[in-house]
């Protein structure tokens, strides 16, 4: 297992700047998920690490070894591709031992490694089959098996679950988590699905427009998103955003919005950030919008709104509310027995409220 470093990585496709100065440090045995919307550059970054794309500028180190000019097969990496990339004309067994055969490894050792990987992934029954005879999930496991037998320094996963249906995706997510526990390998995993990122990662690297937005553990990134993009990207359903102005009156900071006014206590927003007339965006997750709640010292005062649509999700319920002209989403316990159109009162949980500076989009709250 190894460490991986990206230093000031720049990538241009012609005039198109895809990656603009990316610095990431990945420790040994770490499971890092690189997540972001389509086109943010995450797959390009992964492919540059694998050696499948040229590096416009910057350096990549694997185990402190500069690998910019190294051929992919010499970097001691293994990659699981989005479309599995299983060789259609070879059996499962041949697919798995192809790389080992190329390195002219002794046959007994090849057989041992393949058996070991097959045991881990429950592929023993399929070894003699051809890829087209396997289901999507089975093919995915063969692709992973092909990577395991290499015993590489780093495992690279390129959106491995995007071609699977929802149920299979959940199953494979658990499989990959168990695999990580078992192998304790350095894994770099690219996906656009923030649920995969949150559930699998030891650390998440969030990217947008070729720039790293934030690096941190799932909890850090969820609880303390450093900018608007991260706040809106992580967490499902999406965070509510209210754009407004701050005003300071008598040591009390007040957030003014066209539809509501809210005092902001000091433990949420430190004094030095509260400037008169500062344009900010308030962020509050649907779970922290409390509807028909008794209130408390950590909650704001009540605000009146109208219930527009209810979505019953089984255990929880989504309530689409309207406060003045502003729409808000609240998630509450199921069976909130009110009909659409009825008036409801809501308050906000100050403990999980975020304030972002509108111009810089950075978080300024605690």
């Amino acid at each position, binding site marked *: 297992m190894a460490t991986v470093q990206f230093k000031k990585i720049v990538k241009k496709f012609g005039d198109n700047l895809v990656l603009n100065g990316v610095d990431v440090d990945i420790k040994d045995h770490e499971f890092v998920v690189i997540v972001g919307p389509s086109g943010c550059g995450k797959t390009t970054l992964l492919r540059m690490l694998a050696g*499948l794309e040229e590096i416009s500028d910057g350096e990549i180190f694997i185990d402190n070894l500069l690998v910019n000019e190294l051929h992919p097969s010499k970097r001691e990496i293994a*990659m699981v591709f989005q479309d599995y990339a299983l060789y259609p004309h070879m059996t499962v067994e041949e697919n798995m031992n192809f790389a080992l055969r190329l390195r002219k490894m002794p046959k007994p050792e090849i057989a041992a490694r393949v058996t070991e990987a097959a045991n881990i992934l429950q592929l023993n029954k399929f070894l003699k089959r051809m890829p087209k005879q396997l289901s999507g999930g089975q093919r995915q496991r063969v692709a992973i098996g092909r990577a395991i037998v290499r015993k590489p320094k780093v495992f690279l996963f390129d959106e491995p679950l995007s071609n699977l249906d929802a149920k299979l995706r959940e199953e494979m997510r658990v499989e990959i988590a168990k695999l990580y526990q078992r192998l304790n390998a350095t894994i770099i995993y690219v996906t656009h699905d923030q649920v995969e990122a949150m559930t699998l990662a030891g650390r998440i690297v969030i990217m947008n427009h070729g720039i790293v937005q934030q690096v941190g553990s799932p909890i850090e990134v969820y609880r303390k998103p450093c900018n608007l993009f991260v706040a809106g990207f992580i967490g499902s359903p999406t965070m509510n955003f209210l754009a407004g102005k701050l005003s300071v009156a008598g040591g009390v900071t007040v957030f003014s919005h066209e539809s509501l006014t809210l005092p902001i206590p000091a433990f949420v927003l430190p004094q030095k950030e509260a400037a008169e007339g500062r344009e900010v965006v308030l962020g509050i997750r649907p779970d922290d919008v409390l509807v028909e709640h008794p209130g408390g010292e950590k909650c704001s005062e009540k605000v009146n709104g109208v219930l527009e649509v209810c979505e019953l999700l089984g255990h929880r319920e989504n309530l689409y509310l309207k406060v003045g002209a502003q729409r808000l989403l609240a998630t509450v316990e199921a069976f909130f027995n009110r009909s659409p159109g009825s008036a409801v009162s809501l308050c906000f949980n100050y403990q999980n409220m975020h304030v972002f500076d509108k111009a810089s989009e950075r978080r300024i709250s605690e």
Partner: protein
Amino acid sequence: MKKKMTAAAKRQLLKSILLHAGLIIFAAACVYPLLRIFSVSLRPGDKLVSLDLSIIPAGATFISYTKLLRDTMFLRWLGNSLLITLATSFIGVSLASTAAYAFSRFRFPGKKVGMILLLSSQMIPAGMLILPLFLMIMKLKLMNTYLGMIIAYSVSSLPFSIWILKGYYDTIPRSLEEAALVDGTSQVGAFWRIILPLSTPALSIAFLFNFTTAWNEYLVARVVLFSAKQYTWTLGLFELQGQYITQWGMFAAGSMLVTIPVLCVFLYSSKWLISGLTLGSVKG
């Protein structure tokens, strides 16, 4: 029990009858010449030139076939054709497979120009190049040899083969080669071990196309080969049907012997050929 037909069903039946009738007429027009050759090939020796139109003539016999195989060099002509055609196809497909891979997977200066050149070479009238090829072969003292013929034929189907193979390679996902690169092959190794085994349908089409083009060729052979021993079957058959003296029986017999295998091969591979014409929509 009498079932009454609806007006719609009646119309459907009429349409069906008309269609079948029309198709039968056209199909007959297409097949009839072939059947005529067949019947001429079966005519007994004294009735070779006759006004009889029946498919199986009176006194049908295989004498034309035996005369053809015994008294002429027909088998030798077939052998010549086979040898030349196999060599040409082999060379043509080999050259085309590597070139098509370069066009499919790489970006390099001159790629666009190369593709346009390939396309426009299809437009050159075939007759135009026969003369210089003839003179070149004469100068190289390769007249009337196999080698001269193979040289003349080998690049004639190259542009089309490259086009077909490139179209097919384009449908193979690049992630297969990338996986091979990560596993430890070179770029060329990936081509040899992964892409080529997967391209057998397209390679077969290219081979078949090369084969049929060379097999059926007449004009170049007429110019390069001049001794009966070296003839391809096209020249040989032409010899049998002169302007004034036509060996009808043997000509017909020879035609049948050549046509039946070609038809079988064509029909067997026709579904591939048709989809090959739509450029690489076939995928393994």
